[in-house]
């Protein structure tokens, strides 16, 4: 008994030390979780606000019932003890009481269900949206397509932007660790945004707590949900359905802009894409290809093939010194377009992105491939 007490004290002491000396002077995440947050994130839509209040109502009712019921139980534990000489009564049934404590909870449950019903119906009404955006879950990032409304035609991928050394090598973590992306979803404030979800491979889920939305993204099917943000700002969410090894590494960031800022963003985006940045006929310099390739690699390849290019022995091949990377270009282009076993087909990347990342791998680490440059036109030709 004495040893057990000492062991417990030791555990308490160590835990106290560990918690207080945690090396993270991290701040609340803007639009995301706060440090040691106790409740839902502050709502920025009417629906999220309704949910917040529903939960508060439920908590109040549950706490009241809890205190009442366990007040009675603890009173009984204290007073109705053999050691105090209390003699046992002999009653053992009462139909009246059984009916009472069936009917009263039943009524309470109905009272809880009424406000909830209103919110369920409201959450399901995706009609008359101002802008419709398709969110496609893929292993392991999101793709956004603006399919209706202001911004129609804009499309891009959104992948985790946290540097891998923060994840794997214990580098100091930023405040937005694990919930930051290269290309956030951008929407205007006070407009009804309908999000249509689907997936390319397995089930994912698109969820942003501050907006009060979550919807499964199911391959081969479309589902939808909606939100209307009432405050300009940045809001962060996650993939909420187990989707494989990088499930924790495909976050969601939504930038809610004022109408004017949104219009500017749309104009910029459209100008950018039509200026031929993705023009397959444009020949880029080696430096341009390498720079772009590095970015593509960091967003798409590093999860399996690692920063070092050494892969994971037994699971993911090394690119550093790889025969495919150092050999004929055509083989590597085919590998990226068609995939092989665990390696997915990267057809969804643009010709320029594929050309750039192939070039990058051929000139990086210890690789000095003979054929060390690939242009977008070659990738386009190989797709046929």
């Amino acid at each position, binding site marked *: 008994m004495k040893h057990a007490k000492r062991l417990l004290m030791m555990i308490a002491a160590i835990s106290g030390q560990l918690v207080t000396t945690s090396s993270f002077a991290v701040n609340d995440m803007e639009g995301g*979780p706060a440090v040691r947050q106790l409740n839902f994130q502050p709502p920025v839509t009417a629906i999220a606000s309704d949910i917040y209040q529903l939960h508060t109502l439920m908590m109040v009712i549950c706490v009241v019932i809890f205190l009442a019921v366990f007040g009675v139980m603890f009173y009984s534990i204290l007073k109705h*003890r053999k050691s105090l000489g209390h003699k046992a009564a002999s009653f053992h049934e009462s139909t009246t009481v059984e009916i009472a404590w069936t009917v009263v909870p039943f009524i309470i449950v109905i009272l809880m269900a009424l406000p909830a019903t209103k919110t369920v119906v409201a959450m399901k009404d995706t009609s008359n949206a101002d802008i419709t955006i398709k969110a496609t879950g893929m292993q392991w990032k999101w793709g956004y397509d603006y399919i209706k409304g202001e911004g129609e035609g804009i499309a891009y991928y959104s992948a985790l932007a946290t540097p891998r050394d923060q994840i794997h090598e214990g580098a100091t973590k930023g405040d937005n660790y694990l919930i930051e992306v290269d290309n956030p979803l951008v929407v205007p404030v006070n407009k009804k945004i309908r999000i249509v979800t689907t997936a390319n491979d*397995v089930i994912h889920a698109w969820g942003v707590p501050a907006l009060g939305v979550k919807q*499964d993204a199911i391959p081969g*099917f479309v589902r939808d949900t909606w939100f209307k943000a009432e405050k300009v700002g940045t809001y962060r969410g996650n993939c909420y359905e187990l989707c494989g090894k990088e499930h924790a590494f495909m976050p969601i960031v939504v930038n809610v802009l004022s109408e004017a800022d949104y219009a500017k963003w749309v104009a910029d985006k459209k100008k950018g894409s039509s200026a031929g940045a993705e023009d397959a006929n444009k020949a880029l310099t080696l430096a341009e290809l390498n720079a772009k390739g590095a970015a593509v690699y960091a967003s798409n390849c590093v999860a399996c093939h690692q920063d070092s290019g050494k892969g994971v022995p037994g699971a993911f091949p090394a690119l550093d010194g790889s025969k495919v990377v150092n050999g004929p270009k055509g083989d590597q282009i085919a590998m990226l377009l068609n995939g092989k076993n665990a390696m997915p087909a990267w057809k969804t990347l643009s010709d320029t992105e594929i050309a750039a990342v192939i070039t990058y791998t051929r000139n990086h680490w210890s690789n000095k491939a003979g054929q060390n440059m690939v242009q977008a036109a070659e990738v386009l030709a190989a797709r046929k």
Partner: protein
Amino acid sequence: MSTTIDHPHDAHDAHDHHPHGWQRWLFATNHKDIGTLYLWFSFAMLLTGGVLALGIRAELFQPGLQLFKPEFFNQLTTMHGLIMVFGAIMPAFVGFANWMIPLQIGAADMAFARMNNFSFWLLPPAAILLVGSFLVPGGATAAGWTLYAPLSTQMGIGMDMGIFAMHIMGASSIMGSINIVTTILNMRAPGMTLMKMPMFCWTWLITAYLLIAVMPVLAGAITMTLTDRHFGTSFFNAAGGGDPVMYQHIFWFFGHPEVYIMILPAFGIVSQIIPAFARKPLFGYASMVYATSSIAILSFIVWAHHMFSTGMPVTSQLFFMYATMLIAVPTGVKVFNWIATMWRGSMTFETPMLFAVGFLFVFTMGGFTGLILAITPVDIQMQDTYYVVAHFHYVLVAGSLFSLFAGFYYWGPKWTGFMYNESRGKFHFWASLITFNVTFFPMHFLGLAGMPRRYADYAAQFTDFNMIASIGAFGFGLSQVYFLFAVVLPAIRGGEKAADKPWDGAEGLEWTIPSPAPFHTFEVPPTVK
């Protein structure tokens, strides 16, 4: 089935020749031996599943990936769930059923003694298949214990091993349930009508029907997964005309009754212990039977509350919300009945009663979070977050596991013939209760704040509560190691001799036989007044 034995002398001679050594166990047909086998098996599985949980909590102690690759982390979460559900909790309750049902109804053994042997011995090979899947290329399945399609299609051969293991365990459960139903309906001692039967038998009767109804449904779901993986079917593959969400419907049609399968016997155990230690009859016996039956029936119509974010029509969301909230009513009735049993009793708080009252307190907390999750809009925010993880650990650990501990302390003296050490039992209770809450209470906050489940890594803002949970988890694990070495093993080897009825408030036929229970009991059925 009442037999009058005119020659007790002959019967005694015939039974002198029961096997000893390894044959006694491999060829066991005695319900007590088979019960013991199930209990040891489930405890070994509990420790195995527990080690996996400690791996999870060690990785999640701090943000960043320090110990495991994320694909292995997903194996840990999946296997922790599968081992605990199918290897620890379910077989443990079957072990209690085997030991106690014949004793409580005054039967000499279970109806089908050899099938009983087969039911148990299917489990070790299944466990080897399941745990062994860690060692094959690709490792164990990493699709979550729910094995959703189409992620399940991407898994390696470990997934197929898991599927076969679950088929085997399912067959074991179905046979065991047939045995239990037949025994209870046909072999009660004369005078023991159904409404005089102990509550533990009632809850197992109902649970056995649930098992027979839903285990085949799980078998269907995992077989369709197997054929999708290897035989070119497209049940859950949209490209071939199938529907991934159909998997979820089939799985959860099994899955929801499954969680009631894991809690109803717990209700039965607690319904035996509280009256014994309050020295007062169970309040509202008939009501308790009806409430348990209502819970079982309702459990069939609520499955899609696990699927609120899959995109079902609004009418379905409303229906499943209402049906789920309705289950709170009979469950509440049971909680009130237990408290009414305690009320104005003459209570003492030996370890079985500590665990039973602890169960009442902490299971009900899990019940409240379940009610909150039943509210669809709130569930949308909490789906796949740590709030759900907190909820089901409250009801499964503080619910099912605590009731199993309570039952061990209560009936253990009957099994072993020795009293366990009371101070150590109390220490085990308090250590378990405190470390359990330290582990799982902070998870409510993590879920509210939006931390998703099945995540190998998390945003740095979630660090503090994760650290606390990890520390609690190691404490909880240590408490169970303490339980094994300081309580269970000593209580088997020796100690204060247990009386026939060590608990003065206990009622039931099991207390009319010696402790330890003789190899054969109730060869002549007793008459119950």
